[in-house]
């Protein structure tokens, strides 16, 4: 198992390295945008460019790029936005918003998704199951931004329950204040629908398969009530597959949703990424791309490894 984990992690870094290199070369081949004259930190940016060797060949720049990251954890400074500020510090400043919104949404989505999934599996092929499955199909297919519009229009505008956009930190006081949480609710609802539907579908499929196992029959024959048999045997076995998915979701919260952040004005990493693309700030773009690639890779690995950890019978990476 340890060997497998190490192998996977090394492979992950190799992939990350290749993607970073490709990304770096492609970005460097683009014409370099001029530093905007407006900022007072223009000299800082120019000095930084000098240090990062912008006028030297790409190979040298590539070397400096890695040197800066490995030695100083320096991802460069903002050139077209947040001029002069370190890219990494701006990202870290934005991350809490994204993490918080997505964390809340997962926390409310998991119990609902599991609940609906279990209910549908227990009522398999009855009308309740069909109703849940149909809704799941609808909610999984409808794009998340459509929920966002519906929620924004009805809950925020017509009923006035929530503010249209996220409160700013200064007006809400703190990231964890009630006012802030309240303004996050529309966003986390829009994010949650899809997660609930996905989890429901997954749970239902897994649990209904487990329920047909022979050991379930044995459990009932030896005298367990239906509830006992389900909670002690069926659910546990179904969890082997469901739990890794949930864990994978937790890694995914770092990435958040680009479009939901845009609609509700959440100043998170997703919004930062979109802005960096729109204003052509390549330092931000590079760092954020690496960030998103890393998250994608990491959630894949965690997902795979957790299979093995939760159920030792599953030997990941073994020949058979």
């Amino acid at each position, binding site marked *: 198992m340890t060997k497998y984990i190490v192998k996977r992690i090394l492979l992950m870094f190799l992939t990350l390295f290749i993607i970073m290199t*490709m*990304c770096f070369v492609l970005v460097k081949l683009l014409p370099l945008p001029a530093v905007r004259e407006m900022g007072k930190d223009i000299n800082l940016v120019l000095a930084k460019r000098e240090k990062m060797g912008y006028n030297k060949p790409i190979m040298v720049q590539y070397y400096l790029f890695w040197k800066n990251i490995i030695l100083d954890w320096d991802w460069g400074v903002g050139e077209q936005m947040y001029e002069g500020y370190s890219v990494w510090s701006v990202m870290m400043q934005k991350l809490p918003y994204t993490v918080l919104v997505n964390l809340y949404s997962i926390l409310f989505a998991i119990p609902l998704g599991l609940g609906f999934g279990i209910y549908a599996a227990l009522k398999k092929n009855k009308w309740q199951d069909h109703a849940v499955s149909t809704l799941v199909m609808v909610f999984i297919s409808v794009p998340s931004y459509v929920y966002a519009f519906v929620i924004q*229009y009805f809950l925020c505008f017509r009923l006035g329950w929530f503010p249209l956009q996220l409160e700013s930190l200064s007006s809400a006081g703190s990231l964890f204040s009630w006012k802030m949480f309240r303004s996050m609710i529309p966003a986390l609802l829009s994010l949650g629908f899809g997660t609930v539907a996905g989890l429901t579908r997954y749970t239902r499929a897994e649990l209904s398969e487990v329920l047909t196992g022979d050991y379930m029959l044995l459990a009932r024959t030896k005298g367990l009530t239906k509830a006992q048999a389900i909670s002690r045997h069926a659910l546990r076995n179904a969890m082997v597959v469901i739990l890794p998915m949930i864990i994978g979701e937790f890694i995914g919260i770092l990435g958040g949703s680009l479009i939901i952040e845009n609609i509700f004005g959440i100043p998170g990493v997703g919004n930062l990424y979109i802005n960096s693309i729109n204003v052509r700030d390549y330092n931000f773009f590079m760092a954020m791309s690496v960030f998103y*690639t890393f998250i994608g*890779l990491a959630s894949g690995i965690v997902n795979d490894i957790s299979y093995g950890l939760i159920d030792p019978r599953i030997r990941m990476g073994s020949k058979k």
Partner: protein
Amino acid sequence: MMSERDMKNIPAEMFEFTRRDEKIHDEKIQTKAIGYFMDAWLRFRRNKSAVVAFTLIVILVLFALIVPFVSHYDVTFREGYYGTMLPRSSLFAPLGFWDGGKRSVENQESYEYLKSIGVETGRPVIMREYDAYTDSAGLTYHTVRVDAYQRVGYAYINLTESEYDALKAYQDATGTQVIYPLPATHSTGYLLGNGGANFWYKLKNEAHTTTGGAVLDENGDFIPNYLTSDNPEKAGYTSLKIAGDDGGADGDAWYVYAQKNQSGYKVRVDYYEYFRYVNGQYPSFLFGTNAYGQDIFTCLAAGARLSFLLAITISLINYFIGSIYGAIEGYYGGAVDMVMERISDVLADVPFMVVATLFQLHLAEKVGVLPSLLFAFVLTGWVGMAARVRMQFYRFKGQEYVLAARTLGAGDRRLIFKHIFPNSLGTIITGSVLAIPGVIFSESMLSYLHIINLETSSLTSIGTMLSSGQGYLSTYPHIILFPALFISILEISFNLFGNGLRDAFNPSLRGADE
């Protein structure tokens, strides 16, 4: 009795030939053979939701294809005065809904304003009055249903001399009045009224930013307040006139219908009629218009065409690349598979956003926005397809019938394409269909976030339409409603249809939903 007989030595005469005059062969199969696709079709047909979904998809495709032929407008159509028009269907309008009307509460001043437009044009702006109340401060509020198309009223436009004459000739030919006399009020500071063009009546407060309401005569009617001139040459109007304009007969007042300026004439037109003069029919937008005055019905069809075209092209390209790549991987296995699998692994792990952006930055200017988006989708899109095909090849390449074919001397190419590949057809078709909603969603998301800009004069996408409506979500939700509804139905239908296909091609996976 039988046992007593000597079974070992049965005499030859006890045997007799049977069916000597018949040819003996297997019985011919009476029913028609059911092939792979027929079998799948029979199963698919029984899946009601998939059939419904397929019908919906056909309807949406037909919508996208037929609309350009039936619509009165095209994608390039923009009409600023008819921006944010509400949806109106001439079929339902008499029934009191889908009629371009909206319930609103107006104060006395704007109530009079709306009413006055209706009085002058003869087409009521206020479709229905619900109630009115006076608050403690003595201000009266009216709850009314306002016709969005009629409230536009009048507008000042500049015409060259020939255009002016053509318009006058049109008036005389059809008997509909388009040009109305200029009002005497010139203040453009009002919040209402197309630069003052709609204030043809006497106002209490002529010079300020609020009109102060209308001055009414003893019957409660508006008092006309047109610009007059004592010089008939200056008025010089030979076409239709408004009722009551007798051409300065009662002394010195000629209504002024046009003012000469550098380029021609400044005239005040009934915009509803003027629209008909320009476009051939009265304004009526089935799905309303957005803030730029684009017809949502037409744009939606154009966006849908773009989405379908993009998604189907990408799906087909991915189908080809993916199946060839996957076939080679799966068939040869070993080191070839290892290397190729690593390459596709790396590609699969690149976030789509990064690919789309980099392609956009590098290629958009050289080959255009759409081709570069296409490349971005293809670069990573085929990986999933290749994995599916590879899986099928691993399943089938070791089977006895393949071995038999090989023993009989079949070459690699024959084995791949004739014997193994057909087994993965069902999976690939299902995968291609299920990939379509993903492409459409990604495209709409990217254009919504302005990462790709598909908005040109003759091109639009659903994402662009959504983002153009976002600022008007609270006031004019219909701008977002139709594209959002369209894409939701599209996504649901494609998913249901794809699932139906998968169940049909591969019944053992039925209900697995993954």
